[in-house]
């Protein structure tokens, strides 16, 4: 794979063959030319209607069709929408809830707090029934209203949760009728559940503040406790993606030679404007809304559990949603391209929106400084809060990295964990962890992941996002 250095943190894959645009890879050092994820960046550049670049963030790794960490914007009039450009876990995302609780106050009661969270927030394989199984009508409402549905039922940190959620916690174009009976069957009793794998709920300490002004705007104070929730659309989103790929893959060629010639079947796609494209978008947006409702329900459950474990009222706890971001989504957004405002469909798969200061789409409370960018790391090290920049708007369609990215396969991680007690190792460092699955801690240990500090460091050095604060885990629950 040919790579041309733009600057220390950015490489270009020159346009060649069927690529419509060049690829651009943000990286901590020169990317390995034989990395299969780079081939995927080049493949994405073949997408009909793609604009400017096929992008990759520094946490890039091999995915299905699109690399994880991939961003691609297409012209919705003539371009394609690709379920592989969103991913299976539609609107997998993360939120951070700040509190006025000091980490020193939490420390003596940490174990109780973690145990209570583990009890109250269902986790793990088949986790379900956080709330009574939804009727068809209720599920329709969830798919339409997203986080608003959950807030309406009392699941909230405080009164401004929806204002501090990307898209206000719901995409307007959601079409519940495009969500199949089978997807509904998978999702109906999973609302308010964490799931498994790399999903987590953490009690974090704000360990360091890098930008006092932005941290103050975000309500982040060194030494205080924040809650982080990472989860997505559960079985409902997976089923929507499955069915969409099964529908689009065999029929691509009918849309013309640009579609027939796509180099990877997992880039299955359809014109945005086609019935199949509109159907996928409607279902995907509904699944995204389910994920927002999911995280919102867990917010309510977690804040209540934390308060009760510590004997603090919600008012004393001072919980407030800092922000909620998607990692896997495709959205219609306005961007300025070569000086011209354009409406684009932006696919972010394992990437985070990172809008800069002054953008009207950033919540009013943060508009002067820019949008919070939440980047979780791993359960043994740290996570970061960054802020979007004007440069991100110019260079990445307002996008940044989303996490650490895996270094070891699950098999390799389990092998490295053999004979070790990961929970005891974490406890010795003051981190209390509870997980449902016996293999989870081995699969998810720190060594299995890249160092998120280096990933966010690339984004900061490239001017795409600025560091605001570092969060360090105190308590973790996993599936």
């Amino acid at each position, binding site marked *: 794979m040919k790579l041309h250095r733009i600057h220390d943190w950015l490489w270009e894959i020159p346009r060649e063959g069927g690529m419509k645009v060049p690829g651009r890879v943000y990286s901590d050092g020169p990317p390995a030319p034989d990395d299969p994820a780079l081939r995927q960046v080049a493949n994405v550049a073949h997408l009909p209607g793609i604009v400017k670049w096929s992008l990759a963030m520094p946490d890039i790794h*091999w995915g*299905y069709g699109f690399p994880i960490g991939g961003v691609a914007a297409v012209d919705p009039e003539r371009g394609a929408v690709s379920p592989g450009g969103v991913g299976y876990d539609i609107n997998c995302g993360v939120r951070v809830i700040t509190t006025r609780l000091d980490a020193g106050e939490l420390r003596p009661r940490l174990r109780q707090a973690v145990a209570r969270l583990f009890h109250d927030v269902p986790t793990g394989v088949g986790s379900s029934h956080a709330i009574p199984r939804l009727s068809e009508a209720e599920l329709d409402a969830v798919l339409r209203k997203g986080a608003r549905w959950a807030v309406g039922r009392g699941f909230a940190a405080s009164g401004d949760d929806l204002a501090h959620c990307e898209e206000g916690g719901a995409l307007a174009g959601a079409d519940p009728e495009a969500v199949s009976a089978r997807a509904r069957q998978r999702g109906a009793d999973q609302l308010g559940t964490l799931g498994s794998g790399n999903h987590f709920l953490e009690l974090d300490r704000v360990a360091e503040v890098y930008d006092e002004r932005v941290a103050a705007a975000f309500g982040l104070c060194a030494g205080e406790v924040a809650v982080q929730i990472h989860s997505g659309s559960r079985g409902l989103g997976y089923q929507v993606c499955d069915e969409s790929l099964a529908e689009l893959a065999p029929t691509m060629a009918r849309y013309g030679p640009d579609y027939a010639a796509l180099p990877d079947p997992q880039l299955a796609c359809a014109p945005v404007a086609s019935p199949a494209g509109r159907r996928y978008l409607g279902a995907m947006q509904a699944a995204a809304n389910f994920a927002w409702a999911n995280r919102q329900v867990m917010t309510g459950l977690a804040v209540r559990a934390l308060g009760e474990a510590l004997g603090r009222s919600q008012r004393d706890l001072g919980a407030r949603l800092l922000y909620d971001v998607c990692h896997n989504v495709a959205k219609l957004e306005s961007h300025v391209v070569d000086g011209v405002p354009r409406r684009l469909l932006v696919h972010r798969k394992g990437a985070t929106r990172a809008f800069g200061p002054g953008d009207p789409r950033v919540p009013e409370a943060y508009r002067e400084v820019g949008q919070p960018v939440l980047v979780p790391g791993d359960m043994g090290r740290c996570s970061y809060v960054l802020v979007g920049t004007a440069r991100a708007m110019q260079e990445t369609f307002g996008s940044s990295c989303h996490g650490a990215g895996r270094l070891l*396969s699950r098999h390799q991680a389990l092998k490295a964990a053999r004979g070790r007690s990961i929970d005891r190792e974490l406890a010795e460092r003051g981190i209390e962890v509870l997980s449902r699955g016996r293999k989870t801690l081995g699969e998810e240990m720190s060594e299995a992941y890249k160092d998120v500090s280096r990933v966010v460091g690339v984004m900061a050095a490239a001017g795409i996002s600025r560091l605001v604060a570092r969060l360090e885990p105190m308590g973790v629950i996993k599936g």
Partner: protein
Amino acid sequence: MRYVLPQPWEELPHTADVGLAASGATPEEALARLVLGLGAMLAGGGGVGPAAAGRPAPGEAAAGGEARIDVAGGADLAQTAVTLLREVLFRFATGREIPVAVEVLSFAPGRATADVTFGRWDPERNAEGADVKAVTYHAARFEREGGGWRAQVILDT
């Protein structure tokens, strides 16, 4: 021919997820072993209990027993295998059913039919089972190899 757990299968390394491979003298044997390999992953090394007897309790899905699974779709054997595995996974996702025996009745590009016996997932016995969320087309293969057939899929976990 009916194949019963355990059958030979392999886990393939993949950074973010997990790969599953199986071989057979015939395509039907390879496919049966692929399905049971998925079952073995879901079971996590623990035994799989028998089908739940009698009617399910209110709100509880029926689990287990025999089912004829008939799928259409997929341009080639690999994609058709993915289609069948997706159907098996759907039953796990919604009813916590794990395949324990398979007889592939027919298998050709675009169509597959199999009689599958399912057992019931148990949270204690199968605690080390993988939380497989999707069967993907990514790197899916189903082809002749070394006088027999080799099949592989990547599973999203």
